[in-house]
């Protein structure tokens, strides 16, 4: 049987590397944004009146613009398998959020646990979503 030597650095490999670099740039920017928001949320005081109204409105507008743009560009850079895996992971995260939040609320109404903490729920389900996505990627 005739064997054909593998092309080490063809146009496809170069294109794949360029795609990876583009995705890395988007991922780094998204992570920096998420980190900045997390730091502000962790270090800053929370609750009504702790934020200047103008700053709060500006932050919401910035978030409303930046987040959809980050999601859009991230989706554009993904291939169909990655998009499908993201969809599966997001569905998993949504179910976890709804089920976890509802269970926590019912248990707290029964006096068994403290009132639900929305920030904790969001962070926990985000971690679960990321974990699920990583699992899907590793499995192939």
């Amino acid at each position: 049987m005739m064997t054909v030597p593998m092309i080490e650095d063809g146009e496809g490999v170069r294109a794949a590397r360029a795609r990876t670099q583009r995705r890395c740039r988007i991922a780094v920017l998204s992570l920096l944004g998420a980190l900045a928001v997390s730091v502000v949320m962790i270090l800053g005081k929370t609750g009504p009146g702790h934020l200047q109204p103008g700053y709060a409105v500006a932050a919401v507008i910035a978030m409303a613009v930046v987040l959809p743009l980050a999601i859009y560009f991230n989706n554009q850079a993904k291939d169909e398998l990655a998009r499908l895996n993201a969809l599966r992971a997001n569905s998993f995260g949504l179910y976890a959020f709804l089920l976890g939040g509802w269970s926590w609320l019912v248990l707290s109404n029964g006096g068994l646990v403290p009132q639900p903490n929305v920030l904790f729920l969001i962070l926990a389900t985000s971690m679960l979503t990321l974990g699920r996505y990583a699992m899907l990627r590793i499995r192939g």
Partner: protein
Amino acid sequence: MLRAERGWSQLELGGRLGVSRQAVNAIETGKHDPSLTLAFRIARLFKLGIEEVFDDDGSDD
């Protein structure tokens, strides 16, 4: 295998198709059924008909 006949790695083929190496691997191992758009792109790349590249294994999944 069509890819190996051309001496292409999974990364090389993925780059030519605009998908990741993981996607190529998932298609080759039958873990992922490509979309119609991607299936046509693959067939065009290999200059073959779509039914020459893919066959139905009879499962509904």
